[in-house]
């Protein structure tokens, strides 16, 4: 299969189940909301080393308190890890940021207590407010109060949707990757947790060192073309991976579709996907099926 002269390999991305949450951060100005969101999503590229994956989703138009807001998606491999990540990151990155408040952004049947864990920071001076069906905690801080919703909705999500962009050189591959990230991020409910949405250090499972669970994906490293069983096309000299987590499989597929179409441009040799031979996750997102459009 070819798109714009770029070969689409008959490969599949191997995605796996995660738990996801959406956090809406508001502040007095859009800048402060974004500062808090970016701080909260720092060092959250991969569950392998960060405990969770998180990314800014978008500016949130209709926030609970009517102030400017930004939504953040957070993913972890279990509900318990997700709850801990939310408590830690909201506590350390959002509560500390001037003028912010933090709300649940997901209507879900299941939820985790986040505000009720953070309330102890109030040292007994915290107050709970029930407004309509929702409960909030008001935690006194030095510029007034930090308001945080008591429970945050959590859903079973999909992590690890991906595709690989093989470029004839670094510039072409990176330009294609940036175009792909812009297109994929336009889909609601997906997060691209890596720096700028792009991964250069793709991983394989395991290592020759026993203390490592993951290591460099040597078949895709151009500098190792002569030293390992390479998976690179002969013309490729740089590879970038786009990793996509989503609140459901549909948004991940759609983000992959838009991203791949945007990446098919001059200087790109082919598009493929990373998988682990079907051993890691139950979601096998075949690139050619993804490009055919949304599932019926």
């Amino acid at each position: 299969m070819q798109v714009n002269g770029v070969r689409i390999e008959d490969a599949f991305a191997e995605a796996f189940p995660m738990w996801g949450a959406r956090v809406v951060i508001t502040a007095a100005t859009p800048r402060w909301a974004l500062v808090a969101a970016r701080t909260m999503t720092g060092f959250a590229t991969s569950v392998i080393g960060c405990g969770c994956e998180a990314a800014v989703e978008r500016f949130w138009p209709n926030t609970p308190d009517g102030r400017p807001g930004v939504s953040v998606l957070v993913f972890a491999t279990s509900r318990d890890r997700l709850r801990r990540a939310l408590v830690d990151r909201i506590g350390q990155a959002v509560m500390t940021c001037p003028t912010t408040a933090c709300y649940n952004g997901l209507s879900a049947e299941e939820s985790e207590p986040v505000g009720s864990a953070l309330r102890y920071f109030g040292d007994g001076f915290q107050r709970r407010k029930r407004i309509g069906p929702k409960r909030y905690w008001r935690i006194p801080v030095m510029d007034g109060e930090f308001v945080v919703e008591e429970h945050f909705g959590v859903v079973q999500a999909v992590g690890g949707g991906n595709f690989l962009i093989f470029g004839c050189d670094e510039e072409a591959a990176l330009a294609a990757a940036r175009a792909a990230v812009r297109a994929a991020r336009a889909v609601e409910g997906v997060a691209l947790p890596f720096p700028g949405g792009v991964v250069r250090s793709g991983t394989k499972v395991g290592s020759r060192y026993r203390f490592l669970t993951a290591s460099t994906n040597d078949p895709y490293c151009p500098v190792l073309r002569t030293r390992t069983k390479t998976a690179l096309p002969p013309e490729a000299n740089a590879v970038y991976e786009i990793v996509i987590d989503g609140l459901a499989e549909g948004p991940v597929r759609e983000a992959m579709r838009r991203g791949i179409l945007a990446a098919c441009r001059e200087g790109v040799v082919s598009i493929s996907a990373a998988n682990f031979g079907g051993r890691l996750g139950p979601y096998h997102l075949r690139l050619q099926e993804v490009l055919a459009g949304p599932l019926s």
Partner: protein
Amino acid sequence: MTLVLALKETPPVPLEAERISPDVLQGLSREDVLNLEAQLGNRRVRLREFFEVDGEGSEEIVLRGDLSRVKYVGRGMTRGRIVIQGNAGMHLGAEMRGGEILVEGNASDWVGAEMRGGLIRIQGNAGNQVGAAYRGSPRGMRGGTIVVQGSCRNEVGMRMRRGLIYVGGRCGDFAGLQMLGGTLVLAGGAGIRAGGWMRGGTIVSFQEIRLLPTFLYACTYRPTFLRLIERHLEALGCPLPQGVGDAPFALYTGDTSVPGKGEIFVRAVEWKT
């Protein structure tokens, strides 16, 4: 289908009609509804003596006429909707747990007394002790929302524990008396001794009010949670006449004579230093 009860004549003495509630009326035939009993003074009467009934028992009830002498409508109701096209009598929605009551006219005393859930909306004025505790009872309103778009008289929210009361017009004396929790929003200000003996909860006034000397000024700031209340009221079709916006509020805490952990927010014209 809607059940319509039209008052034929104003009762000579108060009529206690707590059976006018969706919980009781749903599923009843017209004849069953007409035969329901009510208390008129010291004797039992049938509803047919005072009401004309159209339709059959339903979760949606419409009451027509001046019901200012009909008490306990919707008492303890858990679901459904009552619309009163006229005035309502005492104890409207008392101990209510769910559903909605809309009064297109005025309401009398003890609206939503000790209610636990649901929504009561009065388009006109209300009397004394809205959402309050009955005499001798430790706790008043424990949940739900009461919206009075007009004014209220005294002791609104007395000993309320949870929930939200909004008063669009002016409130009488002792608003939030002995309040324990919940939120009382006063868009039109209040009389004297607001928050007296208050132990907890929040009073928000959009007008200057004369506070007891046992309330202490803490600071002036922009409380984010007031925006949540504002949007909640907007969703109920009751926008605040002066939006919260970016306005600062002066925070007073008390009542220190109890001592209490209550808070009174007064919309500030300017930052107080």
